[in-house]
């Protein structure tokens, strides 16, 4: 089970701050493909991906209990 978090504009598009993917292991890229399928309007490729609060590469692997976050371009400060 992999948890995925959405913030800001992405949260509004998904309609929820989080969802769960019932898989034990996926690459980051597979998570992104899953989300693009499920939410065609979601600008997945304009987001950075964090796993357990660190930015990762598309080829990195996500395991059960990991927390994935889609981080759209930030605008703090």
């Amino acid at each position: 089970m992999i948890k995925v978090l959405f913030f800001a504009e992405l949260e509004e598009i998904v309609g929820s701050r989080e969802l769960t993917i019932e898989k034990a292991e996926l690459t980051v890229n597979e998570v992104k493909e899953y989300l693009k399928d499920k939410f065609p309007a979601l600008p997945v490729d304009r987001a950075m991906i964090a796993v357990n609060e660190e930015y990762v590469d598309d080829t990195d692997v996500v395991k059960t209990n990991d927390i994935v976050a889609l981080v759209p371009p930030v605008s703090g400060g």
Partner: protein
Amino acid sequence: MSEKLFLITDEVISIQEVVDKVVHPNAGAINTFIGTVREMTKDKKTIYLKYDAYISMAEKKLAQIGDEIQERWPDALVAITHRIGRLDITDIAVVIAVSTPHRADSYDASRYAIERIKEIVPIWKKEHWEDGEKWMGDQLEKTPYPTGKPEGEHLS
């Protein structure tokens, strides 16, 4: 108040409290950067803002910026507080305080901090105008992240 050097809060930020965290006998200079809510951006009039954050990760990334600064300026002390929630015109969104023995470094390290905040810290601003609202950060769609993470040698 919180003793945390790197803090996301939904309360009003006290500049003094952030500065107090970096006061030190060997600091001769403290630079602070205070980000406030500006009314006009070009021709658009902001009514208020809302900030959202991935709080736990944002505090971790602020701490990372503190580490990066101490690598570059070993005598620097850094504290950063960013507010989230609704902010009105002139409200303080962020306070960065950097102390160093000598003044030039305090300016350079403070500037480094705000630029890095705008690159890696998961905080988002929603502008509310009279005629609409928008999450900021990608207005020009100039920031795709095809590799899934930010580019640049100094990112980690």
